[in-house]
């Protein structure tokens, strides 16, 4: 059983080191606590270890040293068969959206409920509701290629959020979008955060970070060099 101290944090890293191959240190001795409902930016140049941190949190990667705790549970000793259930408590958003091109907007969002075994009537209730939330209620029948980049990212956010996850992990969600569209995406993420969802967003978009004024964890060469409440990019 987790001790009481661990329960406070939604995500907790303890001296985590991740090494790729034999010598590429992607993350070195990283520690931090992220409380429930917090909005956190991971910033730093490409290759500084931001994405690796996200992949450690949803257990696409496992650290060489240190522990990762999610919702009070050490996910390093989680058996592989339980990993899918960990992931159901998280949504993932990516720079390249990762939408399925042969499925419509509705089907893309429905797919994530379908594959975790949600019954049809639940899907038919939740998908339109979440598409309404992201502002795509009138484009349910479109295919991804018929949408703008910003709209595609909204679909992917809808897919990540439709299951009401505890945590939303976003890896450069505005990386392919122009400033105005990015603003729209950020206000959407902000609204999702206000529902109580913890949001961790990796980015090197100065404008976005500076306008939001949230907690900033800055990485450089795999090391956390700054951890600041209501920070800016610098």
């Amino acid at each position: 059983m987790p001790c009481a101290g661990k329960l406070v944090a939604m995500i907790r890293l303890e001296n985590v080191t991740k090494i790729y191959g034999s010598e590429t240190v992607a993350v070195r001795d990283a520690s931090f606590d992220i409380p429930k409902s917090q909005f956190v930016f991971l910033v730093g140049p490409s290759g500084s270890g931001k994405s690796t941190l996200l992949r450690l949190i949803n257990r696409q990667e496992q650290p060489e040293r240190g522990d990762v705790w999610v919702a009070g549970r050490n996910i390093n000793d989680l058996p592989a068969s339980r990993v899918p259930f960990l992931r159901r408590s998280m949504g993932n958003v990516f720079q390249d959206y990762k939408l399925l091109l042969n499925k419509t907007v509705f089907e893309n969002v429905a797919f994530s409920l379908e594959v975790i075994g949600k019954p049809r009537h639940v899907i038919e209730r939740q998908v339109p509701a979440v598409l309404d939330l992201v502002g795509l209620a009138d484009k349910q029948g479109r295919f991804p290629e018929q949408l703008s980049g910003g709209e595609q990212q909204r679909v992917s956010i809808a897919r990540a959020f439709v299951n009401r996850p505890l945590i939303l992990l976003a890896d450069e969600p505005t990386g392919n979008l122009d400033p105005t569209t990015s603003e729209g995406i950020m206000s959407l993420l902000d609204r999702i955060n206000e529902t109580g969802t913890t949001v961790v967003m990796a980015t090197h978009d100065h404008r976005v970070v500076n306008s939001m004024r949230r907690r900033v964890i800055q990485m450089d060469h795999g090391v956390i060099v700054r951890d600041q409440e209501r920070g800016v990019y610098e």
Partner: protein
Amino acid sequence: MFSRISYALRETWASFRRNLTLTAAAILTSAVSLLLVGTTFLIQRAFENLLVQWRGDVEMIVFVRSDASAEQIGLIDSVLRSSPTIIDVNKLLYLNKTESYEEAKRIFVGDPVTLSLLTPESIPTQFKVVPLSDDPQLVRSLSDQYRTLPGVEAVALAEDEFQVISTLSNFIRVVTLVMSLVLLAVAVGLIWNTIRTAMFARRREIEVMKLVGATNWFIRVPFMLEGLLQGLLGGVVSCGGLWALNSAWTNGVAGFKPGTGISSLVVPSSYLTSVMFILLGIGAVVGAVGSAIAATRFLDV
């Protein structure tokens, strides 16, 4: 639960149609290999018809006239038992009329004319003799001696009757078995490859499925079903082939002269049916195994 089953079936069918060429190749290969497996079974069984009376190292059969008295039979038995150094008396076996008739039904399965001449009353009974000695001359001289006993109709020696057939049947059995095993391995490989291709074509979908928390089994099952279906369809095709082959063969040998032995080389249709079920079973297992290996290996995308 229902939504999961319908999901798995829909995905299986969609993937099946997408890779039509590879799927056809996998089905055909498994069909050919299964056909060979089936043929091996049938050949073995057909030869057994000829060899059934010599089963268990029997090398001499003393046929007793159907009208022989109990005393005559007793005399033959005691004469046989009087040479315990040459004959294995523990394995000495007497088939009465009913048992001999049952055996004849198998020997003359493809020769109904001869069989109709025999009845359980008119059939000769027989002593099956397993010699201890390896010396064929000794066994032969013994057989000459038995021929003169009262009530003995004939003495048959394995040497004269079946050595060639036995060697031939062993050879054919080994060759077809090895070939079918090799082809089965090829079939597993091809099914494995179609599943790998199917999974590669859908790697993006699988990645999304893993990220939103689909279990590995949920992802794996449609692929396994696809492989199972390929193996099973291969089994169905091979059953059709085997049936056609067997019908052609049975019709073909029916024209042979009775007594040449060739006409005994047929199998009863009940045996053919059970072989077909075995082929369907092997096909399903081969398909499921091939695809399970592929699905497990390539799930870490």
